[in-house]
């Protein structure tokens, strides 16, 4: 059974067809890279998979379960986590509070108005553990406003990891990072166990190709090429889409 299956997915914004009969099948534990030029519909595909926008046609399955009509807020509870291309964190709070919110999102405690959040030891401990996995345990108490861009990228990943997902969707986790920061993020990602299936959108070919086992190339909302890393890199259509005729 595939971890994530997308069948015949279609989406149009008005007259603009952004996703055209996309089929995708990601095996459990696989590392899948999605590439394509700007405007190819990569982030839209992620938004469709996570349910932030609903498709016009087609279906999405998570471990064989049809989740096409499951509300987006339910999908994290089914084991799906994502990071954002544009950093989407809670700027007024500390790093550990950011990750705690990710943990709380899956806990029934999130409805509780009577207890003190800072005294929920297990949540704070789990948040610190997730931060340790991305190498930020030392600065867990630092306000997010005082962190660097690279550290925020890692907080994004820690928040996804904290939810203990089965499928993780990473939207350009290397965007805007320096070479050193890129290496840090890469280390975090390679350390993630094979229990987690990962789908990544990335433009940065050096790091992305190292990560990917299979690659899907999107262009104008359509899957143009799909195959193993070597196949897609060697395919003339990849060259054509990226470099022009």
């Amino acid at each position, binding site marked *: 059974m595939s971890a994530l299956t997308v069948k015949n997915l279609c989406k149009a914004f008005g007259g603009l067809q952004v996703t055209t009969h996309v089929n995708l099948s990601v095996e459990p534990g696989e590392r899948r890279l999605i590439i394509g030029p700007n405007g190819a519909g990569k982030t839209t595909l992620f938004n469709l998979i996570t349910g*932030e926008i609903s498709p016009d046609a087609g279906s999405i399955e998570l471990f064989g379960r049809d989740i096409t009509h499951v509300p987006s*807020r339910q999908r994290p509870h089914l084991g799906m986590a994502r990071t954002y291309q544009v950093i989407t964190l*809670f700027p007024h709070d500390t790093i550990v509070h950011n990750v705690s919110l990710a943990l709380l999102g899956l806990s029934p405690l*999130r409805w509780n108005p009577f*207890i*003190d959040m800072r005294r929920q030891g297990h949540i704070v401990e789990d948040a610190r553990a997730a931060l340790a996995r991305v190498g930020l345990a030392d600065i867990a108490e630092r306000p997010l406003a005082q962190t660097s861009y690279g550290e925020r990228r890692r907080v994004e990943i820690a928040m996804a990891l904290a939810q203990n997902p089965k499928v993780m969707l990473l939207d350009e986790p290397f965007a805007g990072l320096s070479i050193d920061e890129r290496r840090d993020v890469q280390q975090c990602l390679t350390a993630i166990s094979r229990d987690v299936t990962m789908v990544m959108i990335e433009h940065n070919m050096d790091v992305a190709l190292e990560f990917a086992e299979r690659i899907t190339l999107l262009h104008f909302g359509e899957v143009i090429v799909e195959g193993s890393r070597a196949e897609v890199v060697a395919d003339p259509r990849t060259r054509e889409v990226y470099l022009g005729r």
Partner: protein
Amino acid sequence: MNARVVAIVIALAALATLPHWIQGDYYINVSSQILFSAIFALGLNVLAGYGGLVSLGHAGLLGITAYAVGYTLQAGFGHPVAILAGIVIGVASMAVYAVLSLRATGIGFIMITLALGEIIWGLAYRWIGITNGDNGISLHGRPQPFGLSLNSPAAFYYMTLVVFLISLAAMTMFVRSPLGAALMGTRDQPRRMNALGYHVWAIRFWACLFSGLLTAVSGILFVYYTQFISPQALDLTSSAEVLLMVIAGGAGTLFGPVVGAALVVIVKSVVSAYVTRWNMLLGAIFVVIVIFMPEGIVPGTVRLWRAARRRFVPTAAPASKAGAPP
């Protein structure tokens, strides 16, 4: 013991002994007004400060509770029934408010709550069968909890103080709770909260109910204080006034709305005896606050205090760097 605890203990002692050191019934009554206005402002702060949902119709909700109490008493029921009716009807009205206005956020939310507030004002004015129109409803006497008469200003003040402290404690608990953290999350990043598994609408709805509860409590104290309710209490000016309390004191802070309530009530009832155009004075004060402390009096004072300390108390800061020529 830190400065915060000391300040709280001093404030509590001052509040508890207030009728003994303040001169005259008039000022004790002003203090009661400040306290129940502060509960109202705390209620609005749940939405405007912590939820990022600015409501301009909260006076309508306060009015519904006040009318519910007045009408129930007029119909011949006792005070316990009237108080219960005030709370139940107040919170239920907030639920209707929430269902209608939570379809939007930002300006949309403001406009819907404004419209709802105006509708309730219109009903209070025109639905004479229930509200007695412009003449309003008069109450006869205050309740006597445990046989204690609340007719003297000092007794009513102590009752209001107890309710105020309970409300402030409830507010503190809410803000520190997971649900409070979730509400602040939906204020800052609703999209991310949804992607993390939170039901953003439901969190906002619960926050509305809590806000409605505090508003209803304030409405009950208000109507027993004035012993009279008329459409004037529900108008847009009243909604704007409580929003001014929240914003002037510091939206999204625990004590900001309390300080804001004190400021507005003092200018409105005390300073107005000396200054005819007290509205203008209030406007001027607000402009000064916005210029010097855009975040509100409480967080603004904390910021200025820290800045002053950094400047005048020598610390480990590298002085040579600051003094070095460019």
